[in-house]
């Protein structure tokens, strides 16, 4: 077995070269390069988990914003509905008062018109009496040949008119 047979001749060379090569591996590769490689991997892991956290936070913020939006939307909706209701009530009240005023105006106009109609019909009646008196005197004069007095004719007409 050369491992044992050659040990006296080769142990120093084996140990020397092993320490030299492993020393190179440890100091140059292990200490010099591996931390950088591992650092890159760690930085990447940190970045990934950081990005994931940021995404999660953004999701939470979005949910919050949506909830906020919903409550504000509901508030605005109820405020708008209250506004509409008030406006409706106001409008109804206003139209009521205007209607009342218009009713009063109309009643006044109707009253005035009725008074005018009454006056006009009185005047017309008076005119009809005069015309009827004239007509009655004419008829009396033509039929009886008697000149009826104005007063007699008037009384007769009045009586006739009163009887309808």
């Amino acid at each position: 077995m050369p491992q044992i047979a050659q040990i006296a001749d080769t142990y120093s060379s084996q140990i020397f070269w092993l320490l030299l090569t492993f020393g190179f591996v440890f100091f140059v590769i292990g200490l010099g390069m591996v931390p950088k490689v591992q650092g890159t991997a760690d930085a990447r892991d940190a970045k990934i988990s950081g990005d994931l956290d940021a995404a999660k936070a953004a999701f939470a913020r979005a949910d919050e914003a949506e909830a906020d939006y919903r409550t504000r939307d509901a508030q605005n909706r109820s405020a708008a509905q209250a506004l509409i209701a008030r406006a409706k009530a106001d409008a109804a009240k206003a139209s009521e008062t205007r209607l009342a005023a218009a009713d009063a105006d109309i009643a006044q106009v109707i009253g005035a018109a009725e008074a005018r109609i009454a006056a006009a019909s009185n005047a017309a009646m008076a005119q009809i009496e005069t015309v009827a008196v004239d007509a009655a005197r004419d008829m009396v004069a033509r039929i009886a040949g008697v000149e009826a007095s104005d007063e007699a004719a008037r009384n007769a007409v009045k009586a006739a008119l009163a009887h309808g």
Partner: protein
Amino acid sequence: MAESGKIDPMHQFAIEPLFGTDHLSIGGFNIAFTNSALYMVAAALVLWIFVVGGMKRELVPGRWQMAVEYMTGFIKNLLISNVGEGGRKYIPYVFSLFMFILLANLLGLLPLGLIGMHPFTFTSHFTATGVLAIMSFSIVLIVGFWKHGLHFFSLFVPHGTPALMVVPLFFIELVSFMVRPFSLGLRLFVAMTAGHVLLKVLAGFVINSANASPALGLTVGFASFVLMIGISALEVLVAVIQAYVFALLTSVYINDAENLH
């Protein structure tokens, strides 16, 4: 030595100096650049190339960067699940250990023999695995005594030990603790050696049976060859598992030092 015909299945573990550096030495110690050292350098170089490809540091990684980050992430998860958040500072060491052993195991399995080279698995030498095991064990000792001082010895007395049992249990636990570097180093060495020997023995069967007679070649040789294919796949698995076991046990031991219990 196990011999099968002219094929020596142990020859693959022989260490040979390369490039005429047989007598290179420091302070009287021979440091010849051997085929073993060549594969150590190769493993370090391949690992360096692999990790350099993952240094682009892009937010959206490419395939190569993804592969490198997967390996560092794998070691990070291993340490965090075994040691906790305090295990992060051991990522460079355990990553180096795991990848170095993994590449050593895998490079030793490359079928370079097909192009006339001799692949060598330096993790099949306990001189190499022993150094790695002693390093891991030293880190445990240093961290343990640094963080907990002499209180680190309480590791050898589990919670709820009856007073009568404290002393015997202390020595039992001490022995089991002191055995760790040996089990750590020998496990890797044995697993790699056994697998490679098995492959070479079967290869010897194929060659020798085919040389003996066509009938033997078609029966014994073919069966051995089919078995070799399966065992080669198994060896790739063993290469990964042994590297993982080494890294896992190191992190379990580091947990003892880091958190006591």
